């Protein structure tokens, strides 16, 4: 059952001649360890979640079957849909910020430039740090009394613009969005740089001969040929935006007044503060459905454009 070169296999068979049973079973033995771990800690929980969402379960007493009641409650729960709205806003803002910023930076960095590697190395640094470290860092910077942001505003004479960035419902979500963009731009930049490497130089030279200016070359060559990379950047950034938890939990815990409450924070609270496992499970399934639908739509749109 070996691949392609059957002659090699026949000869090897003559030499080593494993028993027929072993030969039948061998492929499964190679895959089994990984499959066991993956099944126990990913496939099984996903399947269980669908079952769990139909029960009233608190993790202690015996679960009670309640049919679609959890889903009905999720659908009519104002807090959950507010949270989803925050996720949508978060997704649009972070995707736009990350993609536009990283594309511009990638184009600027994609040529012989003094200090090019240093730029790239430093811009990528926040990517390797944890959301917790970065969340703590920026929470301290956003502090009203002693944060550097307000200190800088005061130093340049814009004292009136000082804000309680994370403490006010108007600015909190935007502050977190800013930090998310700050952390991940370097990541998307490196992906775009890989994409720019794949564009043949002669295209630009031909365009130059035809008298295309820099702006036209960017819109007519760079942007279209980077589409697959834009697609993956948009997809990864949106997936991140719909499963965001760490940054919110560290910086605002969903507050003030639920202004930064996102789906995962709501699920975490329902499951691990109020022990409503079944209800939180139903929320997770709804979120999963939304994420799956969103992924399909993003891939469809970007693939259609590529073709």
């Amino acid at each position, binding site marked *: 059952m070996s691949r392609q070169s059957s002659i090699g296999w026949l000869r090897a068979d003559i030499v*080593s001649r494993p028993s027929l049973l072993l030969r039948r079973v061998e492929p499964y033995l190679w895959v089994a360890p990984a499959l066991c771990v993956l099944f126990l800690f990913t496939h099984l929980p996903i399947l269980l979640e669908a079952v769990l969402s139909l029960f009233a379960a608190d993790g202690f007493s015996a679960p009670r079957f309640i049919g679609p009641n959890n889903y009905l409650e999720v659908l009519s729960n104002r807090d959950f849909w507010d949270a989803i709205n925050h996720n949508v806003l978060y997704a649009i803002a972070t995707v736009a910020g990350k993609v536009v910023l990283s594309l511009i930076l990638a184009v600027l960095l994609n040529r012989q430039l003094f200090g090019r590697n240093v730029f790239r190395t430093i811009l990528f640094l926040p990517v390797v740090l944890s959301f917790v470290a970065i969340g703590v860092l920026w929470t301290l910077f956003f502090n009203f009394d002693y944060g550097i942001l307000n*200190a800088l505003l005061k130093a340049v004479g814009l004292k009136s613009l000082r804000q309680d960035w994370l403490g006010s419902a108007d600015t909190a979500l935007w502050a977190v969005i800013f930090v998310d963009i700050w952390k991940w731009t370097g990541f998307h930049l490196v992906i775009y740089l890989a994409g720019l490497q794949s564009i043949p130089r002669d295209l630009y030279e031909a365009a130059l001969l035809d008298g295309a200016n820099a702006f036209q070359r960017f819109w007519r060559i760079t942007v279209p040929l980077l589409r697959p990379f834009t697609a993956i950047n948009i997809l990864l950034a949106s997936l991140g935006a719909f*499963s965001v938890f760490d940054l919110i939990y560290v910086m605002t815990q969903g507050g003030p007044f639920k202004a930064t409450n996102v789906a995962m924070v709501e699920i975490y609270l329902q499951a691990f503060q109020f022990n409503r496992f079944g209800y939180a499970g139903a929320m997770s399934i709804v979120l999963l459905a939304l994420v799956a639908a969103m992924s399909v739509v993003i891939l469809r749109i970007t693939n259609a454009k590529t073709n």
Partner: protein
Amino acid sequence: MQRRISTYAERDHVKNQAEQLLRMSRGLAQTAPGRSTRPFRKALANTLTYVILATVLSCVVYPFLVLLNGSLKSEGDFLANPLSVPLVPQFDNYAYAWNAAHIPTYTLNSAIVAGATVVLTLVLAATAAFGLSQFRFKGSRVIYLSFILLLTIPVQIYIIPLYIIVVRLKLANNLLGLVLPYTAGSLPLAVFLCRTYFDALPVELVDAARIDGCNHVRAFVHVVLPLAKPIIATVAIFTFVGAWNEFFLALVFIHDPNLATLPLGLQAFFINQYQTQFPQLFATLIVSIAPIVVVYLVLQRQFMAGLTAGAVRG
């Protein structure tokens, strides 16, 4: 309107005029839009590029400088003016971070968890990818597809049943209870990357080894693995960084402070701290990010390749 040129003199005159015009136009072309403005525009573009890059760069670098600066100040000094440079650097804050914040314990826990996750992921992913790449067998497509489908499902979404499973297995409050789910989390991408890599290796390699009397295990260990070093490095890096930085599962599964990983311990310390102890918090933050920053600066190319591998190849 056509004009008849009758005399030789007249003809010469016209010829001279034409040549003169031609010379003038050439001169114009050489001076006007072409040569004189290009260097200027190029310099402008370069300057603009550097200004934009420098602005973005300082947005990233400045916070770390503030962090370093603040960590060397006394509390009173900091609260008086967060931006001033300390006259006498205070290293007490670092002693505080080292002792009171238990950063060494958390770092050790994170190193154990991340190290074990990397080893386990590499072993499981490489063997599974070899099996999937080397054999065609019943169910291989379904198994591979079930791996690939998991690529887009974040762990957060199935946290509740995962928690129940971990509790049932008596792995809650146990570092192994983090290692196994972390491994499961990085396996889909690891298997995908390894399989793609193995598929690209020439088939003759394994066949030749088998003709020489190797079984598949020996062919895998002695022929395939030595060739797979680049992909092993890639998988090791994204698995390590993922496990080192993971917070959510640790928050849900670990309640014993002695078992806290770095992100979990840092978050707990941050919440329990007085709001004014900025310099101590800055120092703690620096101590806690120092190991990964140092490793990153040494292996920056591998880090960038490793962390974007899934996106670039996927």
